[in-house]
């Protein structure tokens, strides 16, 4: 891993099934992640991807690129635009530093409304 290395862009369609299955797989039963009527009554356009999944998709994106032996030390994310069904995630990433045995990878997962997640994934280099 070298500073400036870019991760290949990755697209993931956001289906209702993705939103619901990932919410339940992360044991997050908040109704806004699986019940559209309740999500809309709360002022949301639709159900939306939960935070544990935003983090998990950063883990997947970096793992798919770095390989199964990668040792992830941390994932920090800042949340932006909500990720609704029928939209698409586009992930991009770049190695921003490699020092003291730790590589830092900046990851951005965007949707049509803007950046959904701006993340920093640190891995053993």
């Amino acid at each position, binding site marked *: 891993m070298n500073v400036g290395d870019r991760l290949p862009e990755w697209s993931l369609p956001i289906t209702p099934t993705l939103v619901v*299955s990932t919410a339940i*797989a992360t044991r997050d039963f908040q109704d806004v992640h699986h019940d559209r009527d309740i999500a809309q009554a709360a002022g949301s356009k639709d159900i939306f991807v939960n*935070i544990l999944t935003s983090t*998990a998709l950063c*883990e997947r994106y970096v*793992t798919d690129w770095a390989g199964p*032996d990668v040792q992830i030390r941390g994932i920090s994310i800042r*949340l932006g635009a909500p990720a609704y069904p029928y939209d698409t995630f586009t992930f991009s990433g770049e190695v921003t530093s490699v020092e003291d045995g730790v590589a830092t990878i900046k990851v951005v997962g965007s949707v049509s409304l803007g950046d959904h997640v701006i993340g920093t994934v640190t891995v053993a280099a």
Partner: protein
Amino acid sequence: MNHPASEALVDPAVHEKIMAEAERIKGWGEAAERFARDEVNQPTINNWLEAMGLDNPRFKAGEAPPSMAQVWTMYGLGGRPSEDDPLHAMMRALTGAGFTAVLGTNCEQSYDRYLEVGERLRVTTALDSVVGPKATGMGVGYFVTSRNTWYVDHPDGRGERVATMLFRVLKFIPREKTS
């Protein structure tokens, strides 16, 4: 200290009450300790791998994906935080002061190591900071940051820290919709 900008956003008496409550709850330190319902287990890992579309042979051979750390101690369907949970105590205080809406803004997880099938996690919650009032695009609110620490307890009585998380939410008064 005088904060004219802040006073314009929130009644100073309300602000003082909020900050006093924050200090009180911060004083609880690592609180609301609880154990995961289940040990780290393969079926739950498999469900997560399928949902995320992640394929890694390590996670079929005894290790758990690092970002699942939080999953093990989720409350589950119908589960509720206890009265002494610092994050929820602070949320209650802000809701009571009119800051009814909530939005997650930051989540910073660190992993000391990958967890292994069979380990049972213990988690604590502390209130890290309450910052505000701030005028944001969503409305006027306070940023509330909590800190979770996950441990694995060993037979010799040693509690090993395995993961941490800083979680920040904006607790705010929704702006009036302009039509």
